[in-house]
């Protein structure tokens, strides 16, 4: 299949991209890594009039660490994150997750900003953003603003980004000493979208869980924090009884929807299995 006709502009700067977005209203789309946009064009599922290519903007690419946070440029490739020693040292769960995104060829092109701005409900990064309480910086010709991940994912492919805004960077708070994190996903083949996936983070002090965050992807129309299940785990040792109590809340927390191969019941069951396994890893001595 061939894409329908479209115009193409390579942005010379983030400001240039924002100006182009303003000039073309809703008929323009930002092209970053292209790993979702190009297939959707070729399948003629979307027909933008203009693609604004930001892929050459070096200012948007890279990982750096401040005193309080890790800042990941929106154009940073999945593969960059996968190979980053900084990410591996401070957020091993994110490094693990990067390796599970699709296949190497896709990871070499696809970007974290693209993944978050698209908000595919089956993608890893949006859920990671919830679990690690990340914030996003968006810029437009009007200036810039910071958006909490918890306020960002509104629905199926729907985000808090406004028309004219470009996602610039992702901000990950540096973990406290006691924070642990675990990532897991269930895919039938390596590289597939997960039937269910999750990130669980918590501070583990003397074996007790606190500030637990459990973010799921692939189960609903958007990534979700399982709020009731998180509360059920807080203050527990992540033992079987606590996990069983937490699992009992997942249906209300996630309200899973069926996909092509998996019913709501399967999704719910697998989300529960995943939660149990990730909590076990968190709570394990030395986890």
């Amino acid at each position, binding site marked *: 299949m061939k894409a329908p006709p479209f115009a193409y502009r390579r942005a010379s700067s983030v400001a240039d991209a924002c100006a182009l977005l303003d000039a073309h209203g809703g008929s323009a789309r930002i092209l970053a890594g292209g790993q979702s946009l190009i297939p959707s064009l070729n399948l003629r599922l979307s027909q933008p009039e203009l693609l604004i290519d930001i892929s050459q903007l070096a200012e948007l690419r890279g990982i750096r660490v401040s005193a309080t946070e890790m800042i990941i440029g929106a154009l940073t490739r999945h593969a960059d994150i996968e190979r980053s020693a900084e990410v591996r040292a401070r957020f091993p769960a994110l490094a693990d997750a990067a390796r599970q995104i699709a296949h190497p060829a896709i990871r070499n092109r696809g970007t974290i900003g693209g993944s978050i701005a698209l908000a595919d409900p089956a993608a890893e990064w949006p859920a990671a953003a919830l679990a690690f309480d990340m914030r996003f910086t968006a810029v437009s010709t009007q200036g810039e603003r910071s958006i909490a991940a918890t306020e960002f994912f509104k629905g199926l492919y729907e985000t808090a980004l406004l028309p004219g805004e470009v996602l610039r960077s992702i901000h990950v708070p540096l973990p406290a000493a006691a924070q642990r994190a675990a990532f897991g996903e269930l895919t039938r083949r390596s590289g597939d979208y997960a039937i269910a996936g999750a990130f669980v983070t918590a501070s583990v002090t003397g074996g007790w869980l606190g500030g637990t965050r459990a973010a799921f992807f692939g189960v609903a129309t958007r990534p979700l924090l399982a709020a009731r299940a998180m509360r059920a785990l807080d203050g527990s040792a992540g033992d079987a009884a606590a996990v069983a109590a937490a699992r009992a809340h997942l249906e209300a927390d996630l309200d899973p929807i069926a996909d*092509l191969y998996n019913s709501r019941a399967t999704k719910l069951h697998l989300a529960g299995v995943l939660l149990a396994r990730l909590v076990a890893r968190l709570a394990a001595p030395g986890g």
Partner: protein
Amino acid sequence: MNAPVPGLAPTTYIGQDTPRANARRLLAGRGQYVDDLRLPRELHAAFVRSPHAHARITRLDLSPARKSRGVFWCGTGADVARAVSPWVATLTHFKGMKSAPQYAVAVDRATWQGEAVAVIVAQTRAQAEDAAQLVEVEYEPLPAVTDMETALDAATPVIHPDLGDNLAFTRGVDTGGVADVFAAAHLVVEDTFRFGRHTGVCLEPRAITADYNPSENQLTVYLANQAPHMMRDIFAKHLDIPEANVRVIARDVGGSFGIKVHVYPDEMAIVGVAKLLGRPIRYSADRLESMSTDIHAREHRVRAKMGVDRDGRITAIEIDDLTGIGPYSVYPRTSAVEGNQVVNLTGAAYDFRHYVANLRVVFQNKTPTCQYRAVGHPIAMAVAEGLVDHAAQKLGIDPAEFRRRNLIADDNYPYTSASGMKFEALSHHACLDKLLALMDYPALRAEQKALRARGIHRGIGLAALIEVTNPSAAFYGVGGARISSQDGCTLRLEPTGWVTAQTGVTEQGQGTEAMIAQVVASAVGIPVEHVRVITGDTDTGPYGGGTWASRGAGIGGEAALLAGRELKANILALAGVILNRDAAGLDLRRAQIVDAATGEPVLPLAEAARIGQYRPDTLPREFQPQLSVTRQFGQRDWPFVFTNGIQASYVEVDPDTGFVKLLKHWMVEDCGTIINPLLVDEQLRGGIAQGIGAALWEEVLYDADGNLKNGTLADYLVPMAAEMPDMVLGHVETPTRSSELGAKGAGEAGTAGAPGAVMNAINDALLPFNARVTEMPFTPERLLRALGKIA
């Protein structure tokens, strides 16, 4: 006596790992696939396809598309029908079979989602697709027949009213008295097996460029295809062009698996439009079109039972097979073959006499189905092997031991199965013994037991198999299909002493050309590097059937052997005249004419060839060297030359998630004489991978209205490298006596046995849970349901 001159020993490439000559070219990106071809004045086509599974076309307006940029021509089904006559796909040996006339482009009514309803021709493919979007079609949706279980119900609409019902074909086998045998059985096991509809997924999609030259009424079709001569006959018939004026060229073909051996309406449309317009027209199916228009296969529901006596011997098998084939039987091989194979092959590895089989083949509003790698075998094998393991488990007999008691004895041939299949010579027990040794079966069972105690649930599954190969005319010719069951090989001695070989069997990536080169080099007595093989051109090569039904090596290889021997005899006759020696005392070894007794070189082949081509004036007047030969071969001793083998799968099931991990796979098979062990092993491995795909991942999903739900490779799951287990292969060689070469086919045995082996392994792992699965693919959800983890 003088000291012996170092002589040349006879050498052969048969049985040797020989790298294929075309691998370097293909890996270098220098293949010549249809899409690589550029012709002057060519135009690109795109199709408007029905979004409905079943709908009447009430209005079709091409005028907006005609005004679109770059558009050259637009046509409806009626327009294309001016050039291409419709067809009906039945064969006379399938008694009572029926189907409806099918047009290249739908006329008035679309019968599956994806059927072409209009064709657009433009300067570029993108322009053609842009214009296709502008075509205005109004549809009146009609009720879609999707569930094969209700396709024959009185309340279900009949897709083709002229046919009276939705039954395309039915066949029964009854050896008599079977009910009594079941009544007397010590044990009867019953299961219902379901098989997901799937498709072949070639790396290279279907592709065609058709070029019609009105000045000579000459049609040239460049086609990704397995059977060029079959297509030539069909193009000639349905475009009303003399067959001799039709040339079909299939150069490099990027995978086929049976997908590219059928008549596709969109390809017929391309040829028809090329004739109408007198300009080259090109078209490649994109992936979505491939998923909705390449033939599908394997949608079956089989109710089956097996009777067993007190000693664990099979006494009877009964099956009821229901299969849905889409709205039309596919031309010209028909869509009855798969179900027919299930009837023929179920249980046929085993020694039992009482058999009942009933087959119903029904129409539905889904993509048409037809022959795909290992046609019917994976279903027949999984049904029998599932029943065998079920019975063994109920009797408390080890599955390997149960097979030992029931597989046809290796000294009991020729043998005719309860279903009527004739076996020349099989080696089930030798293969079983070798397999059990290869996998160290007792140790594996011990490991399984030890791990089970630790909550790790592994399973071992066996699956014996037979495979239809080297078919005679019994497959198609006797039913009236103009598909050759013989094949030819033409050899030409070049003045350099090299040999150019042309064969009717075709190359789709499996190494046909390498195989032919090895046979020719061995038969003639020259280095394999001195043989150049040309395939896939109906204008220049010998007439033949092509490559399907695992016939390339067994039929095409034999023709190459016979041709090679004759060319060698001709060369030796020439050498005898040149040397003034008796040709009977000469031999040809490694491109040297040698003294047959001592191996002493007496004349380089190149010198003999030079004289034969350039200096016949130096030869006696009555001697004319014959430096080109053609030999044909058709297998006539048996309807099919069966092969056999056995596979084993070792899996780990996660009872919490329902996930299956493939740990290892073994296969021992007997394809007779092995020409190239590397290529045979590649065939087995690839075949196993495709069979594993059926067991674990592949299924074309439709909703109740006949909408295809997984038309991309993100949603339709093919087996991929990361999930493949190590495969350990072994061989037993029982050459067929129906040919000099003794080679049988090897292309489909892997696919035939793998699904049953994986199913049995999963069920073996599930034994402690009293759970059992018989519906492929074995998704996590299906396992979780069997385990009672979800409702």
